[in-house]
């Protein structure tokens, strides 16, 4: 009734193969885009941007990236926090001009990058690092690989803590984003406007989603899924596991790097690596894609939205309405998140995405379910 494909005829291959072949889906997608681009920026205030929209958009990108690796290619990674740190620190270095030293002398200094390109470079550098740490995946599988990616997590955080070159020798050991603008509008720094940072993040989120969607339904994505479902069989039908796994690591790290760069430069502004990009972050993003649904683009968004909203909602209910102390609410939050994960895994191992799919199926038949 509400959701139907009747009367939708595809007459060309292009029509048949588009991302949303059903008209209703397509219009819904356009509507969401329209609202996100043309309506939300005008009604936003500081609180909404900082506590909901920005974390949601940025974590969505990270979840998309991790979902490509875990959901599509089946390689479990616990190094997300570390990779986000790489994105953040590369973005910082490119924003402030990379200085190359040799033998105690300044060899040369790159010009300062525009913030847009600095964020992109954050992704590119992370892609390199991701491939490096993805190399062991060719020999190690399953849990062993998950633990091996922990090496990336701890090593990278340690590296950014210890090597002062990464934080431009600042005394505090923190990195803080200087004021940068795009088309004359401030994007980073303390005096930004909500709509500008929102649109900046939104652009990256939409671009990532479009790229991810098109990669995963193309040849690359099919190779990843073949590897995920059975690597030996995939190898026999001619999928090169080296290429497939490393491209998955590369693309995934690229997105994660972008999200790390945005997280630091636009969202937080100043970052201490152990705090912002610790092991907890890796688990958080992993939970997002489990709750949202492994191997789905929509699931990445749904999971990110869920886990961004949950603490805010709990805080509103617990602290503001019931007036409980914040530490109790924080502990309750742990309990609830843990319970939710277990309940989700038992009731619906395929996450919110599967719920949505079932709902769509129901809506198609409604009100005559037979």
């Amino acid at each position: 009734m509400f959701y139907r494909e009747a009367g939708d005829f595809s007459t060309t291959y292009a029509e048949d193969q588009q991302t949303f072949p059903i008209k209703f889906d397509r219009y819904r997608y356009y509507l969401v885009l329209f609202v996100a681009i043309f309506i939300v920026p005008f009604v936003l205030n500081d609180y909404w941007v900082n506590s909901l929209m920005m974390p949601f958009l940025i974590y969505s990108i990270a979840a998309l990236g991790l979902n490509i690796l875990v959901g599509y290619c089946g390689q479990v990674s616990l190094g997300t926090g570390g990779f986000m740190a790489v994105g953040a620190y590369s973005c910082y270095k490119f924003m402030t001009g990379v200085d190359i030293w040799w033998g105690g002398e300044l060899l040369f200094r790159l010009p300062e990058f525009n913030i847009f390109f600095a964020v992109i470079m954050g992704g590119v550098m992370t892609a390199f690092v991701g491939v490096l740490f993805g190399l062991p995946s060719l020999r190690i599988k399953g849990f062993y690989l998950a633990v091996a990616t922990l090496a990336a997590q701890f090593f990278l955080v340690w590296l950014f803590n210890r090597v002062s070159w990464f934080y431009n020798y600042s005394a505090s050991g923190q990195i803080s984003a200087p004021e940068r603008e795009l088309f004359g509008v401030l994007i980073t720094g303390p005096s930004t406007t909500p709509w500008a940072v929102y649109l900046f993040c939104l652009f990256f989120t939409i671009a990532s989603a479009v790229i991810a969607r098109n990669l995963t339904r193309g040849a690359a994505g099919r190779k990843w899924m073949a590897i995920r479902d059975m690597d030996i069989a995939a190898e026999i039908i001619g999928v090169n596991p080296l290429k497939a796994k490393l491209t998955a690591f590369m693309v995934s790290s690229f997105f994660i790097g972008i999200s790390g760069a945005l997280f630091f430069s636009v969202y937080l502004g100043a970052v201490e690596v152990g705090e912002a990009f610790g092991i907890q972050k890796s688990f958080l993003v992993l939970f997002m894609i489990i709750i949202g649904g492994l191997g789905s683009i929509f699931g990445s968004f749904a999971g990110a939205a869920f886990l961004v909203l949950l603490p805010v909602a709990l805080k509103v209910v617990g602290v503001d309405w019931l007036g409980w102390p914040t530490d109790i609410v924080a502990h309750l939050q742990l309990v609830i998140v843990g319970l939710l994960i277990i309940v989700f895994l038992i009731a619906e191992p395929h996450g919110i995405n599967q719920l949505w799919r079932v709902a769509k199926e129901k809506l198609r038949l409604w009100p005559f379910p037979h």
Partner: protein
Amino acid sequence: MNEQLAFTIEVFANGLMAGVLYALVALGFVLIYKASGIFNYAQGVMALFAAMTLVGIQNGQVPFAHLINAIFGTDVHKFGWHVHSFLAILLTVGVMILLAWAVQRFVFRHLVGQEPIILFMATIGLAYFLEGVADLMWGSELKALDVCAAEGACLPQGMNMWLEGTTYEAFGYGFFIDNLDIVASIIAALLVAGLVMFAQYTKQGRAMRAVADDHQAALSVGVSLNFIWILVWSLAGFVALVAGIMWGAKSGVQFSLSLIALKALPVLMLGGFTSIPGAIVGGLIIGVGEKLFEFLIGAPFLGGATENWFAYMLALLFLVFRPQGLFGEKIIERV
């Protein structure tokens, strides 16, 4: 004797002692993994939970005191009694067995036959849940843990004077080793011996090994899978309690206790997920390796704190050459 060499030997000995503690945590992982194929990430939090419960029972704290006070506006904190350590340990073991039953009944019974990765995620969820419950139950502040058999006969603290004295006379250099570490090593050795005896010579132990070998075959000869899994989780809970006592006595009961679970992971990778001796040897290698690396290379050349990542890097490099670990079963893949 050469000063530098003596230092190195001392670092080596301390590494061995730290390794024993890693091995203790790793042991809990191996027990569960062998019997049920579940990679139990919550092992570290179980150690934290056990240690906090022990302290809470000892001091006569009211469970969930903060929560109760917040909801009902009361002001209760303590029962006002002090429980003897021995009784408190027994009670804590009881709590851990209850926990094992609950975990089996409410979580993993519903997840039988799921993919290993789903089970792993469930244990992460369990870890969060337990951590939150532990904090709500007993409060999240740092607690001192002391286990005393009788008045004045507690777990020893400080360095061993006797060892320092004798080694000073023998080599002209006194070795510095914590009393607690020595006790921990002895207890760990006893625990491992006990576990091995249990697995080899008792009926339940044999059933446990049968389940580890082949679930279906064990079922068909009349072993109750459910019971064995509860047994294994209880054993893992007991091991967690021992590890929690040792770590807690060393550095206080606090959140960082649950992070030792992460340190146990490279230990497992080195030793192989399915081997009890592997967990011990892996723990010793990691303990010694990271202390020696920090002492010889990390502190002088890399700016220190290399202990954070050395274990993982070592395990990573090691796995590239031997993917199943030192003692793990050979990985055979059939299509």
